[in-house]
């Protein structure tokens, strides 16, 4: 096979291929779809059909057990938007999203700038900082639960010993549970965003920075007028991905707080899970799913537009 391939490659281009090409492409035309079919069938069954089905379900009143779901039009949506639980879940999710963007992205950018200075050992720093991203959220959620423990957790013991502060019951207090989830999530995702920025920084042309330096710009001016604009695609990308990730948060909430206390850390996905698989309110759960679906699809659309720009570079 390999021998014949090499022979084939050595043949002069132009003559033989031109004769063969029309024939080949016709016969390939059909088999091409056969190649796509396996993936497409599974994507259709497990992504497209469910996406349509979920919209249909959101118009029904159904608790999984009853045999006859009732068509109720938009009333699931009306109930959902009026429900304090949903409003709280939406608010919590927005707070997490904004918190992640405002706190973790600048921090990640800062670390990326440091990791881009050409220091010795940068690879080690990068490995360590990115590490948490590959740790399962359940695994890290568990240890953070221990760190957050009210009386014996590392955080509160440290606060008491070095700052004489009586730390709160992080996971069990209304005002703190969401903050605790946020801090843990920043720890988890920080290195990932750093990596995105690092990729962006490494594509900033060196001569631009040097030119700015020659022009007498100080480092801050160079950063502001050269690096940051050149980095804007990765910033937008990180911004969108961060929002998407925040809107999908579930695992760490499930493990650390169970959405509590009293819904204080319930996210949208947790709300859907709770309504669907604990309360069996399929109507409400699917209405919330559709809401989230539209939101995330819009965000992903922005993301795809930006990642396609990246693809073109290759």
């Amino acid at each position, binding site marked *: 096979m390999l021998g014949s391939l090499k022979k084939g490659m050595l043949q002069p281009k132009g003559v033989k291929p031109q004769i063969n090409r029309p024939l080949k492409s016709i016969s390939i035309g059909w088999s091409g779809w056969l190649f796509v079919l*396996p993936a497409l069938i599974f994507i259709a069954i497990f992504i497209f059909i469910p996406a349509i*089905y979920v919209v249909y379900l959101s118009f029904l009143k159904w608790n999984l057990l009853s045999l006859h779901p009732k068509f109720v039009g938009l009333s699931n949506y009306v109930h959902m938007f009026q429900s304090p639980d949903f409003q709280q879940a939406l608010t919590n999710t927005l707070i997490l999203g904004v918190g992640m963007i405002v706190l973790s992205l600048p921090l990640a950018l800062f670390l990326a700038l440091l990791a881009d200075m050409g220091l010795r050992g940068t690879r080690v720093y990068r490995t360590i900082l990115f590490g948490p991203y590959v740790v399962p959220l359940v695994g890290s959620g568990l240890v953070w639960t221990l760190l957050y423990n009210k009386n014996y957790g590392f955080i509160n013991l440290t606060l008491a010993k070095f700052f004489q502060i009586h730390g709160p019951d992080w996971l069990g207090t209304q005002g703190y549970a969401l903050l605790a989830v946020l801090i843990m999530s920043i720890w988890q995702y920080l290195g990932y965003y750093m990596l995105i920025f690092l990729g962006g920084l490494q594509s900033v042309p060196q001569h631009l920075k040097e030119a700015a330096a020659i022009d007498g710009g100080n480092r801050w001016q160079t950063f502001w007028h050269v690096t940051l604009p050149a980095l804007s695609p990765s910033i937008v990308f990180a911004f969108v991905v961060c929002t998407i990730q925040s809107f999908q948060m579930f695992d760490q909430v499930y493990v650390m707080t169970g959405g509590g206390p009293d819904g204080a850390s319930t996210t949208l996905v947790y709300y859907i899970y709770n309504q669907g698989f604990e309360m069996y309110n399929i109507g409400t759960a699917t209405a919330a799913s559709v809401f989230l679906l539209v939101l995330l699809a819009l965000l992903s659309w922005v993301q795809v537009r930006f990642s396609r720009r990246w693809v073109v570079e290759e």
Partner: protein
Amino acid sequence: MKAKSRVARWLAHLTLIIASIGILFPIYWVFVSALQTNTDIFSPTLHLLPYEWHWANFVRAWQSQPFGIFFLNSIASNLLIVVAQLLTSSMAAYALVFIPLKGKGVLFFSILLAMMIPMQTTFIPVYIILSKVHLINTYGSLVLPFVGSAFGIFLLRQGFVSVPKEMISAARIDGASEARILWTIVLPNVKPALITLVLLNFVFHYNSLFWPLVSTSSTNMRVIPVALSYFLNQEAGQNLQWNLLMAADLFSILPVILIFLLGQRFIVRGIANSSVKG
């Protein structure tokens, strides 16, 4: 950016070292807690090292629940996902890149569309569909929803584009079948992309709690993340053995940490080059 002054470099090192310690600390804490007695974990005095080292905790944790089965479930279901996805994605990517298809635009669009629909919004219908065919609480429910992956197709497509088109047409002239070209010419030439997909996929599915939590119910179908979360739920309250839980946590996260350390360059590249999964 080349930092000029010695002080700037020194400060940068210092900041990165502090950040690294902060990031590593929770992982270290899993390790330390796993080695202590439960009483020592809940001692009111701050201590960074165990008072006594109880290595047997790992054995006790392993025996406290059927972790062998949980690991088997995790690894078997994830391998099935990875292999199936590699197969369907490489075939689809091959068609997208090398075969002149009619309606490629539609195909491209539908793959993009599939990437925009996350599992968290469609899991209720997926659950209903799978329960109609009695696959809930089986390997089928863990694996089938992920056999076709828009993300996989995209990632591989990026690798396939770099394979010279001349090699493909030369092989066609020699009369090689499309399947054969994919298997003997394209795939060997895109090994890094394949490895990236395998590693990202394995880590992603090994880590994910959400769908396995929804789609399995019996103890013998649990995967690692579900098992860990149940550890917490079942024994909730005062007598939860946190040291054993942390020991279980440690051996549960060990596989992904090893994969990350060994395959770092592929994972990092995959993240940097492409968009994201979840």
